[in-house]
């Protein structure tokens, strides 16, 4: 038993030098992958004299904030979708009445003792049949679990009259 302590020390060093066995897709081998549920709302904002906002959105605090910061007065809910994903597992959601919008998400998770954050690549594309597909939004987002994040797209000001904008309200929540 005299060699017990050095043996434990050497075993520890060996363990540290051993590279982790990751599965091919980046998931930790043996670890249950954390899942996340994204909630996506696609909203059309438009400049109008009179407020014709959908009833479901009228009392939404996020819409109130958007209204206070931007010139849009009418907000119409085009679609809502739930997307379930795992870490580093790209997912897509088809949105719109004509299924003309495609939303791609590629999330990674960043959790510590205090916060649970989601970092996701996002691509929002318009793909109306018979027309050339167009990327409308391409970015990386940092989301806090359960917090709603707002993105939007419109034509640049000064080129043409800007009277419409598409708004995405995205929230992600961990599922355990």
């Amino acid at each position: 038993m005299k060699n017990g302590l050095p043996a434990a020390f050497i075993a520890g060093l060996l363990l540290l030098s051993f590279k982790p066995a990751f599965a091919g897709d980046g998931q930790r081998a043996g670890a249950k992958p954390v899942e996340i549920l994204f909630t996506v709302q696609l909203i059309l904002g438009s400049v109008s004299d009179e407020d014709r906002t959908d009833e479901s959105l009228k009392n939404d605090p996020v819409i109130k904030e958007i209204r206070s910061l931007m010139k849009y007065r009418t907000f119409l809910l085009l679609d809502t979708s739930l997307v379930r994903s795992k870490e580093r597992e790209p997912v897509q959601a088809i949105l719109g009445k004509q299924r003309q919008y495609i939303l791609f998400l590629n999330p990674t998770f960043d959790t510590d003792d205090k916060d649970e954050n989601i970092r996701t690549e996002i691509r929002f594309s318009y793909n109306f049949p018979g027309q050339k597909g167009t990327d409308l939004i391409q970015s990386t987002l940092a989301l806090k679990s359960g917090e709603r994040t707002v993105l939007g797209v419109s034509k640049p000001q000064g080129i043409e009259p800007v009277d419409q904008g598409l708004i995405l309200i995205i929230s992600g929540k961990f599922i355990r």
Partner: protein
Amino acid sequence: MNCKKAERWIPLAAGNDLSAKKAAAVRGHLERCPDCRKDVAELEQALRAAKTLAGAERAGDWSEAEWRSLLRIVTAGGIKKKRVWAGLPLKPVLAGGLGLVFLAFGSFLLLKKSPAPPFTQASFKSPSLEQVQTKGLNDLPKITSKTIVSKETGFKIIWFYNKNFQGDGFGK
């Protein structure tokens, strides 16, 4: 001098194998410590008993020095007490504990997040995306963006400007 040291030196002192200074220290300790005096008395008694038995076995022709030497060997070479912790041997417990600490630290390093792979077109394997790409998404327009932050509430909107945006021709 404490009892532990005295315990080690008493047999040597009994065999006159200690320096004068150390022997004086042992004697000084014995004067102060009734427990050690009791131990010495027990040793002396054991020695006397051994001598008596030896006499009965007709082995009593040892000199006093030899008896003292025997006493010293017996007491100094007695069974070593193993140090214990919570009733368990200390060294194996320490070794096991240290091993567990290394295991925990190693596991922490293994489970620490690796950096996310870069986002590339190739990272999307979805066939439907490939279908979209064939329709011209490779000709990506330059998209600019700005973040609008409410001074009152801190609410943020990330707004993109895209010259190809046509609005939603359908709405409701």
